[in-house]
């Protein structure tokens, strides 16, 4: 990795901050405080369940929306506005640009998720006045959410390297939804036969497996997550993101700028 990738990443982060992307945290803070106070008044021993479920789901959704909305514009906006001309006429390779954009947005999402995670733990502390050993699963769930965000960022970059922002957003959102049911899809695919079955399993294994990356329920119930799943999911997210990014680079390398 070159220093140019880091410079581009840093600039992408700066752009997101100046475009007030992190303002979503205010909405998140308000939501979590309201939820914590509300649940705290009811107090029928489901406070933890509600706070964790609501908190993590919101963390994931907010992250997804930001990843997709910004991700689809990372490359296309620069082509459209021709800000790329004065970048690519410098000693910057096209893959370095894509990598820098990916790390920049990923960094933004990590910072954003971290802030929201602090919010989740604060509300947890507010409703139950202590942490439990089961809360470790909350950390793992947050880690998996970040992995999902990496994958969707890479996909958004891939789509935006060949299609319009609107279509890219549509593709990315669809994949997010379908990917959340990936396990069910794999189950269905096994039941089909012949070419249909073959196609169905190909599709089921091609979409990002977000259901394996979703352990919000386990976290809410304080269940443990086996280490094997952490290792498997990490490797999966890495391979999936790199594959999507390679596709984006391959397409972008050949592209004539407007």
């Amino acid at each position: 990795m070159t220093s140019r990738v880091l410079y581009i990443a840093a600039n992408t982060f700066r752009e997101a901050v100046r475009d007030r992307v992190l303002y979503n945290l205010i909405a998140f803070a308000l939501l979590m405080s309201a939820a914590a106070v509300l649940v705290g008044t009811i107090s029928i021993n489901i406070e933890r369940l509600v706070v964790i479920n609501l908190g993590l789901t919101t963390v994931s959704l907010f992250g997804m929306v930001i990843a997709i909305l910004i991700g689809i514009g990372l490359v296309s906006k620069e082509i459209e506005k021709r800000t790329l001309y004065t970048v690519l006429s410098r000693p910057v390779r096209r893959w370095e640009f894509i990598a820098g954009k990916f790390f920049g947005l990923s960094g933004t999402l990590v910072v954003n998720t971290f802030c929201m995670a602090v919010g989740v733990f604060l509300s947890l502390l507010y409703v139950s006045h202590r942490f439990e050993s089961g809360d470790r699963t909350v950390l793992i769930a947050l880690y998996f959410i970040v992995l999902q965000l990496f994958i969707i960022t890479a996909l958004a970059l891939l789509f935006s390297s060949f299609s319009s922002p609107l279509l890219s957003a549509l593709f990315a959102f669809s994949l997010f939804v379908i990917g959340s049911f990936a396990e069910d899809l794999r189950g269905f695919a096994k039941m089909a036969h012949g070419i249909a079955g073959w196609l169905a399993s190909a599709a089921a294994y091609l979409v990002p497996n977000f259901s394996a990356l979703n352990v919000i329920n386990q976290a809410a119930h304080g269940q443990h997550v086996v280490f094997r799943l952490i290792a498997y999911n990490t490797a999966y997210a890495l391979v999936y993101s790199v594959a999507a990014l390679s596709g984006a680079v391959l397409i972008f390398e050949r592209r004539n700028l407007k």
Partner: protein
Amino acid sequence: MTLDIIFPMHAIEILGLEKTYQVGFWRKRRKQALRPLHLTVELGQIFGFLGPNGAGKTTTLKMLMGLVYPTSGSARILGMALDDTRMKAQIGFLPEQPYFYDYLTARELLRYYGQLSGIAAKQLNSRVEMILEQVGLRDAATVQLRKFSKGMLQRVGIAQAILHDPKVVFLDEPMSGLDPMGRFEVRRLIEDLKSQGKTVFFSTHILSDAEALCDGVAVLHLGELRGVAVISELTENVQGKVEIVWQGSSIPEAIPALGGDCRCVGQTVRAVVREEKQDQVLDILRRDHLRLVSVVPVRMSLEDYFVARLGKNDLGEPSKAPPKLNSFSMAGGNRNS
């Protein structure tokens, strides 16, 4: 590293660069934006790339910068291929109607570009401040670019093109959008670059700028190279004709009879005649008591050359008819510069 890269022979060598766009909904129609172009620019030259709108100037520059890929052909800059990052560290580029990250200030943008160009962290600050001063943006250094006027953006564009002290500078219409003072400053800046031994390759419609600045020019029309000329040879080229100007509005009949091309402009008459007829015409003026204003040998201007090249028919023959003055006026074109 080959010797050619350490001591390149030419600044720019364009070897049959060609670009065909596929246009229309099905990309069926073909639009030849640039026919195979061969052109060499020597080190240390200021070279003007001229042509009317749609001639293919920007297309050529975009291919040289690696922004669009040629349909065929190749080019070398400083002896290196177009995708060579060592070469890219040594060139600067000002795009047509430049646009930059508008959430950055001028200083932040230049710092970022300096980093991308590989300027050492220690020199970055002083270099950025120096360039801001040079393009007259020191007072606007902390303003976000979204609040910049068109001419200010053009100045930022020029600043980022010369920021990293490149050996070859490519400028796509550097004067556009600038006020008269700005244009003057850019002309000075280009001259400064030359005196520092840099090569400048710039496209323009403004022939007077090209005539005043360039060592050489190429004329492009409809994607085709119509001519390459050395400015000093061009303008020293006396055409064996003189222009005689006298006061009044009467044209003695004998002068057109000598083959003189006479025009009455306000209270003066201008006649262009062959050199050998000069004395006869002067005798006629003396006889008719007309007051002589001037006798000047006719030189070819860049505009004459430009117009003649555009009029050239597609078979490659220069047109026989002499260019009609002012029949084709380019923005800012001025034959008396």
